[in-house]
């Protein structure tokens, strides 16, 4: 199982694993596959990881109908399993989740984005909306916020003129009851004088320059006063966030942290850049912005996937497929007048019986909407099954938010599901098709 550094496209080549989808689950599955030395190919849109906030949730709210927030994600998981939930987490162990998180954060850390995990606890951070959020892992650049918030230290939140998606005043006034010593301040970002609109990525790019950081610090310093940390919108650089944060801390004399923003935001951009650039180095054939159009299956079970580009149709052969195409945003699930469907393999979905039952009567119903728990049902190895629990294909796996029986947005478990189920699916594929094969060879 040797992997060439750079794959040349060869239609006759049979890959071990094809991962369809380029969101968090697709990226994680690709990482786990190359970590296991599988020959892997990945296709999908430009990258759903762009929409991540940079935070890594495991599970913060359960059951969602009660809006019960958990300080300890593992306790929440135990509760979930105790209730015999069909949630994907019910099929994975705590140990597997820890291993999966470990693999992802080790990979990110080695590539320059260090994460801090909560260990036995969830971490608490503030968001650009001024809300409080429980999460399991935060990038190093947001850590100072966790510490400052825990002690309610006096801090300063900086906003930039023209950055429409972030208002320091909004943050501080929303959270004022819980964190009264948080102050807001708006400054003009160096070089954007007179502009009515500025954009986060441009600010992040500008901050890669030391001179911009110096002149920004110059503008902030008069406002620090008693603040023991300074919070920024998450724009502190794209490639060298740790260097930029350290430099700003030195210039300002206090710890500096980033506040996660609405998608698509710079931390998501960083993750996307990281996956895009690092995974191919490890041997992944990444087909960026290429969607799989159709699939056929040979008699020996090999999948033949056709991928259309601007002017050519490629086919990829793979011994196994991990479907990580997401739900509606990722176009892993589509809808029409009769119901929702999975367009690629036409997997029967768990869904409400009729359209009228898709949504609850109230938009903000805490129980969510039945459609939010629709999706692909799987067996214990994360292989899709139909409504009678019959396996669709023995070498087809599913991972991520396409899975049924979870409402990740309300339960705050999106990243966890993506990473853990991707890990479980890759492990299952590897056990069934790769290790089994080596056993046969050994005998």
């Amino acid at each position: 199982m040797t992997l060439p550094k750079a794959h040349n496209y060869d239609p006759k080549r049979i890959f071990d694993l094809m991962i369809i989808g380029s969101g968090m689950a697709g990226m994680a599955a690709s990482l786990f596959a190359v970590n296991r030395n599988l020959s892997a190919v990945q296709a999908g849109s430009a990258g759903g990881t762009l929409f991540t906030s940079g935070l890594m949730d495991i599970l913060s709210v359960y059951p969602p109908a009660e809006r019960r927030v958990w300080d300890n994600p593992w306790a929440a998981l135990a509760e979930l399993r105790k209730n015999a939930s069909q949630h994907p987490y019910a099929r994975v162990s705590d140990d597997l989740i820890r291993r999966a998180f470990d693999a992802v954060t080790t990979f990110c850390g080695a590539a320059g984005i260090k994460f801090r995990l909560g260990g036995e606890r969830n971490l608490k951070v503030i968001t650009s909306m001024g809300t409080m959020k429980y999460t399991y892992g935060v990038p190093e650049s947001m850590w100072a916020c966790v510490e400052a918030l825990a002690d309610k230290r006096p801090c300063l939140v900086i906003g930039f003129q023209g950055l429409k998606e972030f208002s320091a005043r909004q943050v501080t006034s929303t959270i004022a009851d819980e964190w009264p010593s948080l102050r807001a301040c708006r400054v003009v970002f160096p070089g954007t004088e007179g502009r009515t609109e500025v954009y986060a990525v441009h600010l992040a790019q500008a901050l890669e320059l030391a001179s911009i950081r110096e002149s920004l610090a110059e503008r902030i310093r008069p406002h620090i006063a008693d603040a023991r940390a300074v919070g920024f919108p998450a724009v502190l650089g794209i490639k060298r966030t740790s260097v930029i944060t350290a430099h700003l801390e030195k210039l300002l004399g206090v710890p500096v942290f980033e506040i996660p923003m609405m998608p698509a935001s710079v931390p998501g951009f960083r993750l996307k850049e990281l996956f895009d650039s690092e995974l191919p180095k490890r041997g992944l054939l990444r087909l960026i912005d290429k969607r799989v159009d159709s699939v056929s299956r040979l008699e020996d079970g090999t999948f033949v996937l056709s991928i259309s580009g601007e002017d050519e149709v490629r086919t990829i052969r793979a011994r196994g497929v991990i479907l990580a195409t997401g739900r509606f945003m990722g176009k892993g699930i589509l809808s029409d007048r009769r119901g929702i469907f999975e367009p690629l393999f036409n997997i029967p979905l768990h869904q409400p019986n009729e359209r009228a039952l898709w949504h609850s009567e109230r938009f903000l119903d805490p129980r969510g909407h039945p459609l939010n728990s629709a999706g692909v049902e799987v067996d214990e190895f994360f292989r899709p099954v139909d409504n009678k629990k019959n396996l669709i294909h023995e070498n087809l796996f599913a991972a991520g938010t396409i899975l049924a029986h979870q409402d990740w947005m309300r339960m705050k478990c999106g990243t966890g599901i993506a990473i853990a189920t991707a890990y479980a699916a890759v492990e299952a594929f590897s056990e069934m098709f790769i290790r089994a094969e080596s056993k046969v060879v050994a005998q």
Partner: protein
Amino acid sequence: MIDTLLGSSFLYACLYISLSICCAGILFKVGRWFIIDTGPVSVRVPRWKRVTAAIRSMLSALAGRRALHLFRLILLEGLLQTRILKTSAWRWMMHVSIFVGFTMLVLMHALDEKTTKVLFPEYYSTLDPFQFLRNLFGAMVLFGVAIAVIRRIRFRKPIVVTRGSDRIAVAIVSVIIATGFVLEAIKLTSERVYKRMTEAFYSSASPEDENALKAYWAKEYGTAFASWKVTITPELLARGKQIHEETCASCHSSATSAFISHPIARAVRPFAAALDRHGVELWLYYLHVFACFAALAYFPFSKLFHIITNPLSIVINGMSDIKDADTPAAAPRRALELDACTSCGTCNRYCSVAPVYRMLGNMEILPFQKLRNVKALAAGKMNNPAKLQEVSEGAFICTTCYRCTEVCPAGINLQDQWFSSRALLAEKGFPQPHVWIKEKSASEWSDRIHYSERDAHEAAPIKGRYYNLTDDSEIFAPCIQCQTCTNVCPVVAARGDSRDAVDISPQKIMNLLRLGLNDLAMGSRMVWDCLTCYQCQEHCPQGIRVTDIIYELKNRAYLRFREMDRWKKVDEDAT
């Protein structure tokens, strides 16, 4: 009568007249190279500086290793014409046939007294190999001309446009060669010529011998003797051959080596007596000679002048850096290049934006048409605003991709011509579209669209094949306004100054499309400043063809704004 006119002072007078017209014409043409300038008025160089610059660069070409390069250019691209071979073997064959055939005919045949006779003292035009070679070269020219004619019939507008000058050039060459062949054939059949020759070189001992020689010539050369009735016997022919060898063979090779004229002679033999009677041989001779004189006089003003201008253009451009062509010597070079263009159409065949011609139907997009415009502009012959607008459109659709320069058989630096003439057009008030479009804001344009098309039932459908991304909601509906496109856009990032900041960022354009407000996006800075770097499209997490959409908007905007703004403005100017 014949003898008195051949080589007469009348013919010499005609020759010198046409020769002096030719020389004066060449001087006039060369002089013009230093007078006209196709570039913008603001940066024109004084004429004496152009002369000195040209001389300086000519001298520098002879120095050191550059001379070697010069020699290579002359040999390969000049004589062997490898530039033509690069794009078409047929054209190369055509060109080499005409060039070699005609040049050799001029040297060996027309100037035989000055060249061939000097090199080969035993030269007679009717002796082999000269007789054979003359036929061969003539055949080469006709072969080349035939390819040229077929090519002109096969490739028509817009690739090749055949004009009067092309027809005249082909006609003159064809007349010279055709009359030459027929003249040679008639001379063979003519009894009068036979008589003239025998009177001069053969004094017969007996009528028997006379008949024998006549019999031999009638058989071998096809000479037609009127009212001459002799039974031809083998003995008579044998005697005739003997006399021929003694008297004529030193100047006359066998007629079969005249492989074109001889068959013609056989064909016209039945009419030989009539032709003789009317002195056709003489008239053909005059036609042949005067066609040559006419060609000589017409030479500097005709397409044939490219024999001089093309090698010059090839050498000058081959010796200089075509990407940095703006020197004081540029103006004379550009003027020379205008004379070097033979309208062969090679540039049109390779033009990157030639397909746009099919969409817009504007001939001024095509390179060789553009070069004519450059000429007309420089000569100040182009003042009609409507025409100038069309020319401006053609000039600015060009992407200056260098393909035309790469393939031009005359080695013309076409890019430099485009750059300089564009600047001149801008000076004349016909700048690039994005310049005049930015005179108004996106909302002003939108209002103008509203008012100007208010009375029309709907915008006219666009003819021909056209993408339709901006009207297809499937294309942009998936947009979730995440701003990624705007965030990665280098144009948005580069516009620091609020006065020229991007007004409607890419994600806002997508939103306008969703609201059906395409008109509002069309005149925006974003659309007209877009570099088509495809960053937005590559980063779009929803897979929307952002760049393609912006590009299409720009094209659609141009079609409408041109009609509203330029054409109307032009009409106002005209009235």
